[in-house]
């Protein structure tokens, strides 16, 4: 099962390791061999033009999409591997669920459960998935709500919240499952400019607490200030991957340069 690809792994097991991911939708190849290694506590920002495959990459990592080739390991455990013959194999369903349990994801459109109150959104998965008792999870959920500044919205329904509040609930909901890695797919791009700030602030706090995060974003300021590394993707490939300040200061690749000029 643990068929390793050619490269040698670095000494400390990385939190997440993706090697040579390929993903095709029908005839279109959306990922053409994307690799990424994320260490504990790293914050990775992924930028790139629309359609470059950023969302698809994130979705493959957390098994919302299946790859056709490549290898994904989470904290040393293999989710999918490809042998030398090119055959791509996922592990058994139960194991997939355990491995993906180490990751949480925050979507552009929040995907909160509209029929549950804010608190119920937070405790649903710990109770249903982990089988914990309500009285055990509620205090933790309340603490998380306080952390994202929404203690008073405990009993509100999501529809009563502003976009920024919704997104902070979504973050708290993901945190309630105590993931080791958090994936964000454009968490602020559905928000009014005014509401973006509060979500970015929450994410910055998570970074300060050394949460491992992979963030697809259009917020260059956030990428520059918070990310340890920035990945620039284009056409289903990683074009450039360098420490944030370096990449913004002197983009190497002309495509990166063109993109950054357009954005700023």
């Amino acid at each position, binding site marked *: 099962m643990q068929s390793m690809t050619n490269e040698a792994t670095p000494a400390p097991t990385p939190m997440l390791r993706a090697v040579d991911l390929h993903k095709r939708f029908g005839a279109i190849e959306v990922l053409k061999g994307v690799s990424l290694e994320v260490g504990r506590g790293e914050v990775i920002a992924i930028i790139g033009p629309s359609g470059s495959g950023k969302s698809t990459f994130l979705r493959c990592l*957390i*098994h*919302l999409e299946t790859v056709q080739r490549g290898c994904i390991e989470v904290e040393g455990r293999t989710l999918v591997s490809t042998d030398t013959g090119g055959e791509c194999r996922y592990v058994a369903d139960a194991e997939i*669920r355990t491995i*993906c*349990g180490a*990751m*949480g*994801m925050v*979507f552009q*459109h929040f*995907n*909160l*459960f*509209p*029929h*549950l109150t804010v608190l119920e959104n937070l405790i*649903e*998965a710990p109770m*249903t*998935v982990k089988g914990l008792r309500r009285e055990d999870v509620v205090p933790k959920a309340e603490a998380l709500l306080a952390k994202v500044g929404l203690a008073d919205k405990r009993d509100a*329904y*999501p*529809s009563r919240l502003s976009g920024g509040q919704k997104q902070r609930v979504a973050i708290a*909901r*993901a945190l309630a*499952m105590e993931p080791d890695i958090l994936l964000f797919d454009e968490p602020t791009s559905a928000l009014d400019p005014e509401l973006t700030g509060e979500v970015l602030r929450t994410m910055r706090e998570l970074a300060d607490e050394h949460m491992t995060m992979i963030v697809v974003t259009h917020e260059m300021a956030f990428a520059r200030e918070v990310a340890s590394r920035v990945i620039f993707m284009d056409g289903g490939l990683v074009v450039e991957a360098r420490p944030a300040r370096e990449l913004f200061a002197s983009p190497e690749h002309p495509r990166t340069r063109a993109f950054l000029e357009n954005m700023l």
Partner: protein
Amino acid sequence: MDYVLNILPPLIEGTGVTLQVFVITLMLSVPLGLALALLRLSRIAPVRAAVGGYIWLMRGTPLMLQMLFIYFALPFVPVIGVRLPDFPAAIVAFVLNYAAYFAEIFRAGIQSIERGQYEGAKVLGLSYAQTMRRIVLPQVIKRILPPVSNETITLIKDTSLIYVLAMNDLLRAARGIVQRDFTTSPFVVAAAFYLIMTLVLTYGFQHLEKKYAVYDE
């Protein structure tokens, strides 16, 4: 007025039959319809096709024919053949028929839930069954209340079809009195009964809709 009081007992008895058919049909066809809807959305193509065919057959032929078939012809069908008394036969026909209608309502409801809800549940680790039970179906209920309410109000009137098995529901009881006494006023009383039942149902569903209105989508 005296006359109306006089004919009330049989009409009330008929209403009892109507309500029995109504309640039992509803209680059985809703869960069966839900099961059919889930099968209709199954990954296994032959299952989908079989359920699709069943729904087509049930919605494509008159309930009266289905009832006559189950009552008269089913006993002679090999293997599954069974001779049902009139009331069970009527119930089986109603349940099989209405389950098909409810299945379509449920299917549409389930398909109207955005993919984001499934994805949100999946990344939290919920299994498909858990996602259905805890996330999707509770939202489906809210969305399908209006068509379910329609179908239910249709059912209360459709129950009168059991006359073909000569059971004395409200409408047949009224017709019986009309034929005995040769006057049409029992029809007026029966109409009032139906209106009252419809009204009660309408209020019941409005109450449910209000209950589910605590959250918006």
